[in-house]
């Protein structure tokens, strides 16, 4: 049996589970708090930073759940690449104190009511599901990289292919949008429409 | 690609070349005799001051770092009452040396003039005047230009030519 990287040989399985439970709750608390901070910040970049922290804690939760590969990918792709792009864009927008004031005007307490009710409904549904059939203790079965690869290329082959197609379309689209027409770099040689 | 590798190789091969650095306080760079460094005032072979207080150096100086005041001794010979060079302004261009008609002001190959206090860079006449002839040995301005003594004007003594009339074209 593979051992989780958290486990050193000295500890008994029960102790380890306890440890992981504590770590899990701490990480979850961080995730929840940082996500709340994301939606309450008026400053866009600060909000994005809290979102990064939230992604990191989610990655850690994946790691505790025995999926280190997904954890690493979460950090590399979400926290490392996509959020950098977000910050990149926000950076370019040059948001100042003026936009923060604007934001403050937009997020009045009245606006919170709708989303809060909807998410409360979701929470109630989630809780009932959890109460009625408590998740069976899966223990620590580690999903290694090879298992992920094998399942991706056998069971979910169609999904992988479709994702590939989608990404290809995105790349071609980006290329088309990004490419410029060939320009003649001399004003006398430039063609002008009469 | 080849050119990148080539430039990497060239930089690497410089490991075995001679180094260009002079390790300064221990080893000094050899300076040419005409190096324009610290300014001095020189004396003629009779140990009289060469400077006649003509102000040409102060006029020629592009940064106005020279100031002097001419005066005369009891024989009517001109000399500077004070002579002051502010080396924190001086750019060591050497125009003063070129302007000087008596070879009094000269630039020397000495560049070690750093001071902690900027005011110490203002050199007075006693700091500038040396007991020597500098670069031009044996030159005595009055021996060349002549001197009026004892009721005789320039060119009236024995074995003395008349001074050249600089306002005439005739040789």
């Amino acid at each position: 049996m593979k051992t989780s990287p958290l486990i050193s040989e000295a500890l008994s399985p029960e102790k380890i589970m306890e440890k992981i439970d504590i770590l899990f709750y701490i990480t979850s608390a961080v995730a929840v708090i940082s996500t709340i901070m994301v939606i309450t910040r008026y400053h866009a970049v600060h909000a994005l930073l809290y979102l990064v922290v939230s992604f990191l804690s989610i990655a850690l939760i994946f790691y505790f759940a025995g999926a280190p590969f997904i954890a690493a990918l979460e950090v590399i792709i979400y926290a490392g690449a996509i959020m950098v792009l977000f910050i990149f864009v926000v950076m370019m927008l040059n948001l100042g104190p003026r936009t923060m004031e604007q934001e403050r005007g937009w997020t009045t307490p009245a606006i919170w009511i709708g989303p809060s009710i909807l998410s409360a409904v979701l929470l109630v549904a989630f809780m009932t599901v959890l109460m009625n059939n408590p998740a069976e203790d899966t223990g620590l079965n580690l999903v290694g990289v090879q298992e992920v690869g094998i399942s991706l290329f056998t069971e979910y082959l169609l999904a992988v292919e479709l994702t590939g197609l989608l990404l290809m379309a995105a790349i071609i689209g980006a290329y088309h949008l990004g490419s410029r027409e060939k320009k003649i770099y001399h004003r006398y040689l430039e063609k002008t429409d009469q | 690609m080849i050119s990148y590798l080539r430039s990497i190789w060239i930089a690497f091969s410089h490991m075995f070349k001679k180094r260009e650095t002079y390790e300064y306080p221990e080893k000094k760079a050899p300076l040419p005799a005409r190096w324009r460094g610290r300014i001095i005032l020189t004396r003629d072979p009779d140990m009289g001051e060469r400077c006649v207080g003509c102000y040409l150096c102060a006029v020629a100086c592009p940064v106005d770092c020279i100031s002097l005041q001419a005066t005369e001794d009891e024989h009517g010979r001109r000399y500077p009452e004070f002579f002051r060079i502010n080396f924190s302004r001086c750019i060591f261009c050497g125009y003063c040396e070129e302007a000087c008609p008596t070879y009094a002001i000269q630039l020397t190959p000495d560049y070690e003039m750093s001071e902690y206090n900027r005011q110490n860079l203002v050199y007075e006449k006693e700091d500038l005047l040396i007991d020597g002839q500098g670069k031009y040995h044996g030159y005595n301005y009055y021996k060349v230009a002549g001197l009026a003594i004892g009721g005789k004007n320039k060119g009236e003594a024995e074995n003395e030519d008349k001074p050249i009339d600089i306002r005439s074209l005739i040789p």
Partner: protein
Amino acid sequence: MNVTLKTALIILGVPFAMLSLAAGLIWVERRLLALWQDRYGPNRVGPFGLLQVLADMIKIFFKEDWIPPFADRKVFVIAPAIVMSTILLSFAIIPFAPGIIISDMNIGILFFLAMSSLGAYSIVLAGWSSNNKYALLGALRGSAQMMTYEVFMGLSLMGVVMMTGSFKLTDIVLAQQHIWFVVPQFLGFVIFLIAGIAETHRLPFDIPEAESELVAGYHSEYSGMKFGMFFVAEYLGIILVSALITALFFGGWLGPGFLPGPVWFFLKTFVFIMFFILLRASLPRPRYDQLMGYGWKILLPLSLINLLVTGAIMMIYIN
């Protein structure tokens, strides 16, 4: 020895050793650059100028730690901490010798890639929070460059991972007992080297901080120890990439038996550190668009071809 004590020693010792190595590297770099430029470099403070590092450290510790009034204070302060912590965390996976490794996790390489991609934040945030044109331009260039080069940094390593069948760095080193991976994965090695230089934004690719164009790029506004952290992190990055090249392509601690493993590891790493400095001494900085074009148009296809060929050969070889 007690297992816990040994672990604690390694956990404390590796970052300490790396930090002091990085500080020493400043002296090494200055001396080597001088050597390749026909100069002497720092040779006054202590024997061979070795204490220059100490003098510089004292100086930088006692400098005024100035936060500009127009900066975003909190972000300005955490930005240098991010780069330091991500790079120091990356050292957790470097196997210096059998047993001398902080965490031999089974996603070792992925962990390194994750940390290096998080390192991009420090540049972006430092540039943005400085609220300065040059810093922002540096941050833009830096983030674009790092994200570009991360892509095929990961792809170039996949050949090695395929040949080993594991992301674990100790497994990768042990798989090189017969032949170093630099021979079958030469293309991967070259691409990783180039991407490593770009990732640490070292000199031929120091686009984000290009002195002659952007003053100092993203750390224009930094002073004192905050600047020192960026500076030391750059050297830590050099050590990290050199150590990874050693572990992934040059057989890590493996070597003829007359020297112990860690010494071999250190020697090989040092050769690559020297190579990095040699690159700085010899190559000019490319233009920004040239760098990006070079990455996407040449290195990415090359790394994909490398992956494809490796996979094909492995399939033929195994079946």
